[in-house]
Structures are given as structure tokens and as C-alpha cells.
């Protein structure tokens, strides 16, 4: 508006300077301006301010909205699923206030399982939460419906909706993304994952080769052997080391065969007749041949047990070799069933039992685990091969003697703890309230069952000095469990 420009320009310069004329003023203002100018007693500042005030009001009264009819319409598609209940939305609001990603994940997962959607008004807060915590993104995408997808196209930071196909990420993604994609594919289709890697291998940098190769640890198997054996001739030492590490996980690889060959000669089950051939004396001979191929020691087998070791050097080498061959080998070597093999080791080579346990972990020989459940050693890798009940029973065995280590592995379980196990763990935690504090419970709330609140209230720290600190953590946990319980109730989960 030109009249207003006149006001601004005059005000900028100041009335002390020559003022622009009134020619550009609208008719209505010209008349008023003339009346103002006619008052002789007024100074020029007063005249300017009065005219400006009139123009200001003229501008305000004459405001016109911008007309733009040609804007393209952009409407979010209708939702197919139903929205969640008001009750569930209220709990979500409490969870967002608590800023707890674990509870948010639980809420979203319940919402997704019941095929419901987030209310539209809460979408921005949840979409932002998933920016901070990428683990939430698939659930957020599932619970946001068409409205969320529509919003994500308008706001670039929420572009995680436009999930690229795995193959596209593999070809064009960032190094970390490519590793993730390959690892995920390895879980579902190990051979395809390896083929993808083989196809791009020549173009990969040395650093990315190692990272990508590590993903083959998931479901490493006989079909990988040929290619991995070939990688032992790679230029990069780190790539060779990783390929060797992978080969050590696969029965039938050259390195495992080499170990087996050495063990065939070194660990022999001896059965001798004694007492007028009435009885059979059994023993396990453990002796390395005089000349051991030096390449064995370049593959990671240590020659020396160390000064403080209870093993002799020879025994230490055998220990390492036993832990590096599949337990199946002993069935052939001793011509016995697994139970018998275990018994032989227990009776005649007891110091090598832990090595056998390590071999079971390494080669994931699930059927052998049963023999080790009562053994004093703790084999954390067994957990992945156990059922939920077995896992908790196994961990409970070590909770008294090695609480912190056991809890460390209990936290890695994928399922919510059973009530009995949770109470046992929390009783131990009560004695270490600084370690198992509010932040800890906020992070691990998914593992703790909501139904233990009454029992939890009775758990106290044994040390009187720690009771106050434990109480703070416990109260926080009770609050989180309350939210968890309400979430489950709201979705009838």
C-alpha cells in the first residue's frame, strides 16, 4: 500500500528532513490530511503522526486476503484401520511425558498388534520420538496410517516412511545401512546375502570389506566355504583374519579339518584290558605329535599357556584345539554317542570339559547342551539355543554366585522375564541400587512383568545404608510398571 510506504519512508528519514508530498495518498486520506495540515498550531511532527495514524487505520480497515485459487490440493488418503481408544491415547500422552522409549515401543507394538492407529494430533510427537530412536521407526510407520505417511512427505526429517527396498539400500546406502541390510538378509536368506556381497566385493574398500564380512557370522554354513576359503588369499590382513575367523565357525573348513587332523593323532580314547582281561581300563591319551605343523599356531592357536596358567603348554594347545572343532568330531573319534563322549571327557579329561562346552557354543550344537546344564561353568552362548524356561532356569543357577554377570545376560533376553525369575533378579538388584537405578529401569522396563508390583513392594535392600537409594529406584519402577499395565489393559493385550 503506497500510503503506508509514505509513512514508513517519512519515518525512516525523520520529519527533520524534507518530507515526500501527499500526492500518492488515497482520496479518503487526502481530505483528512488537508484538515490536519490546516491546523496552524500543530508542529510538523504532530501533523505527520496524525496523518500516519489515519493511514494506519485506513490500512487496517482495508486489509484484503491474498487470492490464490490455483494451489494444488493435497489430501491425505482415508484410513483403513481404526484409531486407538481415548484411554489408550491418554496413556500414550503419559508415556511421552515420561520420555521412555521402551514403554513407547511397548505401546506402539500393542497398538500395531491390535491393528489400531495413533490419533492424528499425537502423530508429530511420535514421529519426532522415532527420529531420536530409530528402533521405533517400523512400529511408528505401522501405527501412523495414511495420515502419517502423508505428513512424512511434507516434512523431510520424517522421510523414514519412504523405506527403500533392501536392494536399493544395498546398492546406494551409507556403509552402516548396507551392513544392517546385509545382516538382516543373512538372517532370512543367508545365501542371497553372500551372493550380494560376492557381486560387489571387488568394488568394496578394505574397511567396508571387513565390516560386511562380519555379517556372515550370522548363519555361517557350508555353502559359504568355497568363497571364504578363497578370501584367505586376499591382500588385506584384516580381511584374511576375518575370513579365517568365519571359517573357524564352519565344520568342514580347511582350518577346522586341520585342527581335527591334529586332534585325531593327539587325543585318543584308550581301552585296555586289565585284571586278567576281566575289566577294561579306559583313558584318554592327550599327547601332541612331535612335529606339529607351525601353520596351526599362525591360525590363532597359542603355544604358551602363560606363567600363571594351571595347564601345561601342551595341554593348553589341546584345550584350544578341542574348543575349535565341532563336538560331532568326538562322536567319530571315540566311536560313541554324545552322552558317552561327554562322560569320557568328564571322567578322563575333565580339564577339557570347558573346551568342549566352548565348541558347543561355537558350532551351535544344541543337542549337546543338556550334558552341560549341571556343569559349574557358565556358557552364555547356550542361551540362544534354549527355550524361554530353560534360559531362566539356567540363568537362575548362576544368579547367587555371579549376580552381575548373570543379570548382564538376562538383560539380553528377547522376552519378558517370568514372574519368579524377575523377583529373583530384582532381589539381587536391590543390593546394588546405584547400578540398577531409575535410568536403568527406564531402559529395561520391557523385560520386567507388570504383574509383580505387589511382590516388588516387599523387596528391600539387605544393606540398611542402601535402602533409601533402592526405594527411589523401586518407586520409579512401580510407576513404569503401572504405565505398562495400563498400556496392556488398554489394548487388552
Amino acid at each position, binding site marked *: 500500500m503506497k500510503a503506508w510506504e509514505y509513512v514508513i519512508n517519512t519515518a525512516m528519514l525523520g520529519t*527533520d528532513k524534507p518530507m515526500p508530498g501527499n500526492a500518492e495518498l488515497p482520496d479518503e486520506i487526502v481530505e483528512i490530511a488537508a484538515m490536519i495540515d490546516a491546523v496552524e498550531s500543530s508542529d510538523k511532527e504532530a501533523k505527520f*503522526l*496524525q496523518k500516519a495514524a489515519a493511514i*494506519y487505520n485506513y490500512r487496517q480497515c482495508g486489509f484484503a*486476503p*491474498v487470492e490464490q485459487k490455483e494451489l494444488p490440493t493435497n489430501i491425505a488418503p482415508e484410513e483403513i484401520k481404526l484409531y486407538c481408544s481415548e484411554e489408550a491415547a491418554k496413556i500414550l500422552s503419559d508415556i511421552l511425558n515420561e520420555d521412555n522409549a521402551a514403554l513407547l515401543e511397548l505401546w506402539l507394538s500393542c497398538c500395531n498388534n491390535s491393528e489400531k492407529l495413533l490419533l492424528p494430533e499425537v502423530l508429530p510427537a511420535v514421529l519426532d520420538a522415532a527420529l531420536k530412536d530409530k528402533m521405533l521407526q517400523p512400529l511408528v510407520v505401522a501405527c501412523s496410517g495414511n*495420515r502419517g505417511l502423508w505428513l512424512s512427505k511434507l516434512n523431510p526429517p520424517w522421510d523414514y516412511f519412504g523405506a527403500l527396498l533392501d536392494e536399493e539400500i544395498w546398492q546406494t546406502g551409507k556403509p552402516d545401512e548396507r551392513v544392517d541390510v546385509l545382516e538382516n538378509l543373512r538372517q532370512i536368506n543367508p545365501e542371497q546375502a553372500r551372493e550380494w556381497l560376492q557381486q560387489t566385493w571387488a568394488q568394496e574398500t578394505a574397511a567396508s570389506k571387513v565390516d560386511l564380512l562380519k555379517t556372515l557370522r550370522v548363519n555361517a554354513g557350508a555353502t559359504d566355504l568355497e568363497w571364504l576359503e578363497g578370501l584367505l588369499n586376499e591382500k588385506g590382513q584384516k580381511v584374511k583374519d576375518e575370513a579365517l575367523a568365519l571359517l573357524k565357525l564352519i565344520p568342514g573348513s580347511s582350518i577346522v579339518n586341520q585342527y581335527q587332523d591334529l586332534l585325531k593323532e593327539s587325543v585318543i580314547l584308550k581301552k585296555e584290558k586289565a585284571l586278567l582281561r576281566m575289566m577294561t581300563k579306559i583313558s584318554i591319551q592327550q599327547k601332541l605329535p612331535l612335529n606339529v605343523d607351525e601353520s596351526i599356531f599362525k591360525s590363532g592357536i597359542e603355544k604358551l599357556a602363560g606363567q600363571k596358567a594351571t595347564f601345561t603348554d601342551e595341554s593348553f594347545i589341546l584345550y584350544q584345539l578341542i574348543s575349535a572343532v565341532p563336538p560331532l568330531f568326538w562322536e567319530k573319534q571315540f566311536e560313541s554317542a554324545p552322552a558317552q563322549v561327554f562322560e569320557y571327557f568328564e571322567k578322563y579329561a575333565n580339564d577339557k570339559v570347558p573346551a568342549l562346552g566352548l565348541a558347543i557354543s561355537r558350532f551351535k550344537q544344541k543337542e549337546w547342551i543338556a550334558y552341560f546344564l549341571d556343569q559349574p561353568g557358565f556358557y552364555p552362548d547356550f542361551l540362544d539355543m534354549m527355550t524361554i524356561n530353560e534360559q531362566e532356569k539356567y540363568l537362575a543357577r548362576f544368579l547367587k554366585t555371579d549376580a552381575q554377570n548373570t543379570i548382564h545376560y538376562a538383560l539380553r533376553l528377547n522376552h519378558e522375564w517370568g514372574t519368579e525369575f524377575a523377583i529373583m533378579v530384582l532381589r539381587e538388584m536391590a543390593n546394588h541400587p546405584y547400578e540398577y537405578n531409575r535410568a536403568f529401569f527406564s531402559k529395561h522396563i520391557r523385560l520386567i512383568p507388570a504383574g509383580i508390583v505387589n511382590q516388588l513392594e516387599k523387596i528391600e535392600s539387605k544393606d540398611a545404608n542402601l535402602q533409601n537409594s533402592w526405594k527411589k529406584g523401586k518407586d520409579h519402577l512401580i510407576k513404569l510398571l503401572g504405565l505398562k499395565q495400563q498400556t496392556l489393559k488398554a489394548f487388552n493385550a
Partner: protein
Amino acid sequence: MQLTEDQIHALAPDEASKKAGRDLASPAKWVTKGINQQALWGECQGSGSKPYQTQVDLTAIAFKCSCPSRKFPCKHGLGLLLLCARQPGLFPNTDMPAWVNDWISKRSEKEEKKTEKAEKPVDEVAQAKRQQSREQKVSSGINELLIWIKDIVRNGILTVPEKGGAYWDNMARRMVDAQASGLAAMVKNLGATNFWNEGWQSSFMDKLLQLYLVAESYQYLPGINPLLQQDIRSAIGFTVNQEDLKKQSGITDTWLVIGKESRDEQQITVEQNWLYGLKSNQYALVLQFIARGQVGQLSLSAGMHLDAELSYFPSVVPYRAVVKNYSGAKSAGAANDIKSFTGWEQVAAHETELNSKLPFRNEMPVVVSALKPVQYQKQWWLQDQKGFLCHIAPDFKNIWQLMALSGGKPLTMTMIGKENEYRPLGVWHQNNYKPI
């Protein structure tokens, strides 16, 4: 007085206290607790050997706690109130223990003394003398203000951004001395112009001219329409006795609280509540000035409906009002029941009418139907059914929430603003009013 969780949160001195209060709203934290009509009390086991004694006066919310916290109210007071709001059944209705009784009795005594003081007859001669003296002070203050304004336009506003804070503060303080608190606030607001913004000159001149209009008008007060006189006096800082106002007849209606905002001004929380009369189609602004640690007489929250009688402050454009009496909140009405503007052209006509009556008015709320938020030239706008656009204020933070509710479809919306820039306050979504 039964407070909602939102109202209790609003009492917290900071976010940390709010969170700590929420954590204490657990029955396990309280060794003893009780309630009666006058007070709410509890003993909270803290880090000390003895539990903290926390008490809340329920007749006029006030707190006392034996904890050493300097925050007021402390987390214990907030936690106790929150727990009572969430689980009132946990609080047995019993006699007050001695430590609560002592405090409540002292407060009652103080209150009685205050009432006695208030009941003393007013010395009308002295009051008239005080009034005359004030008018003189205001007049002389305004004379100085007009000289100051003229100095600004004489020298040009080009160098205004270079002026330090003292330049504005000195004149604001002078206006406070002249007992013209309204003008003092306008001067401060003028100095608070964002000079980094492109086009600051226009918003600066808007404010300067509003200030000039008010100051200049005061000199011609006797010749002006009596209602406009009241507007000018209010803008200068003369107050209207709210008790007198409540004696006048008001507008009875079902009022929807379309928006609520609070800001802190020197230890006082200024709460703005915008109301819309569903039958009368009237807008109202209800202000509450709340000292820290106390609650306002009214407990309003955006989206609430209340049947109430409102008395407007005398004005050519009745807007600010006081609630004379009100009864319980009703359920929310549907958007169809609202007599809204149908587009920006109607809003423009309404604005013109208001501005022609009161040129120095502040932004006011409007309800407009079928508006959709759109992006145009990298800015956010609200588009009506005919394709007319007005800006969404750049300081509006919840644009994505608005977009999420709209989904690209038009919504009936409440907003506050002036000319071609508005800030959404709420929308009707699936027949529910949702504050944004």
C-alpha cells in the same frame, strides 16, 4: 477446591518441580495423609530422618512444607495435590493434626483481619483527591511521552535499532511514575520490536502509532464518546473495579474456552483465556493475574464449556470480561453449532468494523469455518473455501499438529490475530474441539 492435574502442573515453579511432583504422586511416598474441607496434608518420607510435613490450604490454595526446598510450591506440595487429584479415595476425611491446625488457624486469623480492613468505609473526599492527583500525574507523563514520540519521528526511525535498552526502560519507568502502567507496557513493547526482522519498520510504526493514538486521545477525553473514553483510560492503565463490574448485568451463555495462554511478568503469571459464546456469538478475554504458588479464582482450560454470565469491561468493542458466576462444564458441542465466519472476506469486513470503532485495539480471536493449512511460496497459510489466503503467524509452533488434524481437509478453526496474520488456537476435529 478440587484442582485438575493440569491446574496443579500450572502451579509448579519449573519443569523439574513438575516432574518431581509427579514422581511423588504415589501412595507409597506418604507415611500419613488426610483431608478435610479446609486442608489437605501428608507426611512424606524424604532423605531426612523425619518425614516432611506438607500441608495445603484448600480454601485459597496455599502451601506449607517443612522441607528445606527454596522452590515454592515445593515438589511435596505438588505431589500431594496430584495424588489427591488422581486417587481422592486414599485420603481419609479426618480432623486436622495439631501441626496443620496451627497453620490453618493462623491463616484464618489473618484473613479475618483483612476482611475487617476491607469493610472500613471509603473516604470519598480522599479518594477524589487521589484520583485528581493521579489524573495530573498521567497528564504530565503523557506530555513528556508525546515529546519523546515526536523526537523519534523527527530524528527518523533509521537509528532506532541502535538505541540501548535504557532508552526504552527510562521512558517506561517514567510512565510507571506517572501511574500510567498501560503506557509503560506499550513503551516496553515498542522497545521489544525485533529489529533483526526484515520489515521491522512497519511493525515498529504500528506500535508507535498505537501509543501515539492513546496518548494524544487522552488530551481530548471529555469530547470523546464515553465508551471510547473507557478504552483510552484502560489502555493508559486506569483500572476498573471488577466488583463494581460484576454488579452490572452481563451476557449469559454457554462459553467455550477456545484458547488459553500464560506468561510470566515479574513474579506474576498473567493468564489469558479466550472465550466464545455459542449462542451470543460473542468473544471475550478473561484475564487472571496469579501470584506464584497460588491458583486463580477460575480454573479454565482450553476446550472446556461452561455456562456462565460474563460482564464486559466498558468498551466500544466489548472484549475483556469478568466471569460473574458460572456452573459446571457441559459436554463439547459440535462444529455445526458454531456461527463462524465462512471465509477471509467476512473476517476482513469484521476487522474493518472493529478498527473503525477502536483503532488501537489488540489482536482478537475469530472462528472461521472450512480453513485448510497450505504451503505457498515456502510459507504456511490458511486457505478458505474461495481460495483466499491469510498467513499463519511465524511464531506458531504446532503447525504439524494442525496439519495432522487437517490431513489437507478444511477444518473449522479458532485463531487469534489481526489483518492478514493469525495464530490457530484450536480446531473442531470429528466434532470435538481440540486446542492446539
